[in-house]
């Protein structure tokens, strides 16, 4: 299987990525409302939104869009009727009408010309198809992490977003939190010296919701075949779909790929590796014992990624990280550890650091959905563009493949292929079940 031609095409268009993301070149984007334009937003100026996937995360995002006056949600879409009915109710209650349209098929939503932007919060295996099709339909996109189910699908999203001028925000909302930004700025500005190791701690185990994994008839109102989409066919059981899809490798990569979009993303932000890949990956995982039935994503994992820049990123479940969850940067002169509970550093007084104006100040956003809407208007890049999300989830996918094969892998970040390892390369993408397909 020769893919030389394809890579050349990519190389040809890849020039834009030579600019590093988020360094001094990106100042805070000040929303127009702050700068004297009148506070309220005329309905005609609102950004119209369609939501695709309104389960738990999608509903939470929907609420954020409903709470922002710059946005107006026009439609919701889900393969489960209960989901879109619940979402419609929420939306209609907020706007005091019954206008919210509902769809079971995303293509009907994408075909609407009056929708400016879509929110995508489906299981991972759908991200690639939905995002590329939405981009070429001219929609701006707020999409959940992880970016995509596989590295080539993530690359396809990055290319589509660039080709069609899409404003893209990934749901890696930690970037819009002060502590995470501050930690990354400490590292970027050399406050802990030269960083030799970054430890990324993610949750352990599969957080399985107790639903039956026995085979059962598909419930009324749930389009199971579409839910499966490009994934291999398996018979339905309630424990397979909502929420629990995360612990089944047909649809996702478990806690590792779920959380790579958070703490690995922050590690990349701090290390300035948002457009750089590791050169080697090796590690091992613990897969669930027999009792777990259909759930097969690793319960425990530990892998090391070496970078040309001379540091190692160690990604593991929190039990195998001395500092537990979060991103832990270890430098020649100290360390910084940041997680959702807070930030810690050694020496301690780093936490008091004030950066002078001509030091590196990273992109400053304090409202993730708000940042997206501002950028849709200003056409500027968001705080978490697709290419940053691609690098974050790439680490998760590389680790998964390394664990599956149980050997050290060598990676070429330019071609996004393994070096001299056909077996590993064959695992990069997952064939799609017809009639689903993706343009890559």
């Amino acid at each position, binding site marked *: *299987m020769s*893919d030389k*031609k*394809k890579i*050349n*095409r990519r190389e040809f*268009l890849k*020039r834009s990525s030579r*600019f590093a993301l988020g360094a*001094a*070149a990106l*100042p805070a984007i000040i929303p*127009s409302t702050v700068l*004297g334009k009148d506070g309220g937003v005329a309905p005609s100026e609102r950004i119209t939104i369609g939501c695709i996937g309104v389960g738990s995360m999608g509903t939470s995002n929907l609420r954020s869009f409903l709470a922002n006056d710059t946005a107006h949600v026009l439609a919701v879409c889900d393969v489960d009727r209960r989901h879109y009915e619940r979402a419609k109710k929420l939306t209609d209650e907020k706007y005091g009408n019954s206008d919210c349209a509902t769809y079971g098929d995303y*293509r009907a939503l994408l*075909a609407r010309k009056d929708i400016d932007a879509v929110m995508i919060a489906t299981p991972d295996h759908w991200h690639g198809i939905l995002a*590329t*099709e939405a981009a*070429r*339909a*001219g929609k701006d996109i707020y999409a959940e992490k992880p970016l995509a189910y596989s590295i080539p699908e993530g690359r396809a999203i990055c290319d*589509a977003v660039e*080709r*069609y*001028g899409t404003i893209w925000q990934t749901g890696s909302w930690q970037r819009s939190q002060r502590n995470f930004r501050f930690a990354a700025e400490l590292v970027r500005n050399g406050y802990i010296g030269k960083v030799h190791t970054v430890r990324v701690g993610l949750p352990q185990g599969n957080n399985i919701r107790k639903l039956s994994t*026995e085979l059962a008839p598909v419930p009324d109102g749930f389009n199971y075949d579409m839910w499966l989409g490009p994934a*291999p066919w398996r018979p339905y059981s309630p424990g397979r779909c909502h929420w629990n899809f995360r612990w089944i490798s047909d649809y996702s990569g478990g806690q590792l790929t779920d959380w790579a979009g958070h703490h690995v993303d922050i590690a990349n932000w701090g290390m300035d590796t948002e457009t750089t890949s590791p050169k080697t990956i090796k590690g*091992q995982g*613990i897969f*669930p*014992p*027999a*009792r*777990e*039935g*259909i759930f*097969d994503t690793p319960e*425990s994992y*530990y892998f090391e990624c070496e970078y040309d820049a001379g540091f190692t990123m160690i990604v593991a479940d929190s039990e*195998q990280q*001395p500092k537990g969850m979060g991103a832990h940067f*270890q430098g020649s002169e100290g360390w910084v550890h940041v997680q959702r509970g807070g930030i810690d550093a050694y020496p301690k007084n780093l936490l008091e650091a004030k950066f002078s*104006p*001509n030091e590196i100040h990273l992109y400053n956003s304090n409202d993730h959905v708000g940042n997206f809407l501002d950028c849709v208007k200003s*056409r500027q890049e968001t705080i978490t563009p697709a290419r940053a999300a691609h690098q974050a989830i790439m680490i998760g996918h590389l680790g998964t493949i390394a664990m*599956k*094969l*149980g*050997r050290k892998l060598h990676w070429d970040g330019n071609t996004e292929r393994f070096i001299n390892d056909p*077996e590993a390369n*064959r695992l990069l993408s997952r*064939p*799609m*079940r*017809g*009639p689903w*397909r*993706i*343009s*890559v």
Partner: protein
Amino acid sequence: MQKSLFVNASVLIVLLLFFIQSQGISQVSEENLNKIEAALPDSAYATPEAPRQLLVFHRVEGFNHSSIPTGIAALQRLGEKTGAYQATVSDDMAMFNEAQLSRFDAVCFLNTTKLSFQEPTHRANLMAFVKSGKGVVGIHAATDNFYNWLEASQMIGGQFDQHPWTADGTWAGIVEDYGHPLTQMFPKKTFDINDEIYRIKPANIRDNCRVLVALDMTEAVNLDVSGLRFTDKDIPISWVRDFGKGRVFYSSLGHNDHIYWHPVILRHYLAGIQFALGDLPAATTPLPLQPAKKLHIVQLDSALHELKTFDYGNSLATQLLVKEFVRYAGKNADLQKEIENRFIDFLRSDATLAGKQFICEELSYRGSKKSVSVLADLLKSSDTFSMASFALERMASPAADKALRKALKKATGAEQIALANSLGWRKDSKAVKPLNKLLNSSDSLLQMSAATALGNIAHKKSIKPLFKSLIASVGLQQAAFVDAYINCVDAVAAAGDLKKAHGYYRQLKDAGIGGQAKYAATRGLIATAGENVSDVIVELFNEGDDLEKRAVIATIRDLPESQSIDNLLAQFSSLPESAQIQLLSALQNRPNDTAAYETTAAALQSESTEIRRAALNTLAITGNEKTVPLLTTFILNNRGAVKKLAESSLHRLQSPQVNDVLKTRLPNAETAEKVVIIQALGERQAPDISQALLTETSGPDSKVRTEAYKVLKNSAGKDDLAGLINNLQKASDGKRERAALIQAIVGTVNRLENPSVGNHMLLAALPQVTDSETRADFLDVLGRIGDPASLEVLEAALAESPQARVAAIRGLAGWPNDQPMMLLKGIAETDTAAVARALAFRGFVRLAAMVDLRELSETEVLFTDAFSIAKTTADRQRALSELQHLKTPVGLDLATSYMDDPATNASATATALTICETIANEIPAKTRALMDGIIAKDARASDIERAKAVIRILEKYEDFVTQWEMAGPYTRDSGDLFVDAFAPETTDRDTVQWEKLRPENAENSWLVILNERFGSSRKVAYLRTSIYAKAAANARLEIGSDDGVKIWLNDALVHENDVGRGVTPGDDIVTVELQEGWNQLLFKVVNKGGGWGACLRVRDTEGNHLPGIKYAYSSDQSSD
């Protein structure tokens, strides 16, 4: 004098050591000492090069191994008898002071646990010790330390991660490195040992350490344990490693006492210690584990046999086995071949579809040409089509292309699309022809799918047919054709034919298609424009609509700077606002482009705020020293957010000459500009500016002087101090200026290497100050610096005049520590002048609030006193505000007692909330009542929000049973502890002794921890409690247990779960009926090893607080 002190200290330590040593041995019975004696070797393995000193360190900060005294005795005697070393025994961290540590040749961590090494010098000393070439020995729990100190845990080799091989078991060991000097005492390669064996994480020991002894994981006895993990393939027991120039030896043996009189292990220790001491040379190169050697194809056969009947929803255990086998086979070609043959046979067998699907997925990434034909056969049946096409898509062989193409001819519907897809991913150029044909299909889904596949192949022969299709279609379908078309055109460009590609893009742009096609075409046109790019850009920009303009700008961002865009910039001002903004932002990537810079500078004059804002952002990046006057003027002429942004741009300018330009401009600038410049110098942390600033402090304008002081506060040095003090001696009217000057002096003095020097300069100047206001400022400065030498000066000033007294009190009140606290208290109590009294009180409570300086109980007394001497509402408000630093129940009581008075309610409430936010879980009931009160009282909205947040914190651990009584532990040698009934659940229960459990601390009160008390072995404990319901109700029990659990409510079994896990609240949830009044609950907790504990709370059926619920110790309740 210093020397004699040192001697005294050492004598003391030696005495202390003697005490500890003798105490250690005294705990070991005569009998055991004799056993040790009998087991000791006669001689050492190597003759020491010099008398060796070994520190046997046995400090315990976690679990205490009862075998430690035995270990101490054995290690002492081992050294004495063989002459290998002399042991010094201690558990005092002071041993890691440099002077102490340097006496030793090696440190042995003997069953130390959870050592934190909080003192950074101790850490540094130990690391320097090892790396300089000395030794470390770790026995058993030595890997259960350094949890926040990675380097040390790496040094020892890893970290404890459970011990499925418990102390009561006998395990199969293997000497992996047979023939190594440290394993020469083992009579044969395998051995049995009764001890507790650790699993070590991270599991990459073999990268750094040479493993000598390990558990033999091919032996059934080691596999039949609770808590075994699938990855437990490699459990090292003893290893050595290099660390810097030093040497480390570790053995996880040493939990049980008898290990210390085990003749072989004692010798193993001795060799290890001598290795660490540097006397016994031994290889340390890591050796890999070679599990593939242990694989036999028969194992795969039996797994595959089982897999034949696998169906969806069954356990994945067999699949895991197969995957594991494949993984360990790795690149062993012979084994791989055998595996593939078996997989092919499997696919031809009568195995279930689910089983075949799994095998197809495995074959997909590892199968060779050999597998193609069986997969091609499977394509023929609709049952097996998907799994086969899945595997074929990933196959490397061209035979797979052929099979897929062949199938494409006959297939229909979703199968045809899947085949097109696979051929597309495989970039099979031979598929272009048939796929091109499918573009004409009557089925629009098939058309789109063929297009996508053709785009993925990206062959130039598809360009024409795709273009034909795209102009004939609309909407999403058209978008799919456009996308495929662009893929193919991009490939033409990538192959080097830019001209042709440009023509194809032109064709797309001119096709009159709307939407994103225009954006993409514009982008493609510029990317393929070659030499003409500048003209193309202008042309596209001028002719394009908004979307196309946007595309042009996006490409400018990526264009090399050498490529001129002057033509476009020439018409900048005539562009629409949004385009100007985007273009300005794109110019950030052109820092050396003169025209771009001039365009940006000119944009500062725009009428649009948004455009000015964009220009400022760009200037911050592309600007240099020449930008300074431009920005300065802009700052002076603007206000609000834009002005702030301009200031930030000025502060961010990168050129190294910016600071010089600012400094040069300063002397001759107008007043307003001076302020801007001084501010910029300060924000930029420019070096060497204090002289220039000091000059400005004698200028005519107070604003300039004030600004200069603000910057001097952070930049002035010792040489500037005289000038600043001189300024302080001069009277001045400006209150803000004065405050800034005072802060500048305090800041400067505190930054000096020796602040007393600066303080002395102030004291020396003080006698000349006669003006009372100036004198007051001096006292203020002295107080804030807080040098001990100033105290008497301030005290003396108290007696001078009423004015001076007030000034002195002010000074004392600003003291940086609590030295003058009681003095202030005295004044606050007794002074007759209200102003003096109030000031003193303020100072007193401010210093009292420095809670870190003393025990919390002392601060509690101070605040109680403060409230008793407070005379006015203002006093009380001040004290309440400072009270928020005292986060204790007493502090909370003090705060709440002022909540009823309307005058103090606001500050008391705020303080109570702050305290509760920290200590809520310590006193949940009280906190809850208080928060409910605040919410009910219609308090300020922000207070109510805070109160609700506290309740949320509280509810996380609310309603957990804390009144437990315990019986047990029980155990039985054989049988199933989960099933077996012990006294509390039988008719014997009246004879059971129940013990009340008191929570150790508030934080953990919700959790019963049993392993710390009773160890980790297989045992059972029973817990009981009484639950009161004010009315009969359905309720739910939220249960956490480590491990198995059975629960009886009012003698009826309501829940059982035979699991192995850690305690997580709400792991099991059971709905039960509570009867009115008291209910009796019995909780059986079965430990299968490792952690052991339980928690329980009772909630309503929705998981909310159940009103009226309360708990009591059953024995208290029954005697009610």
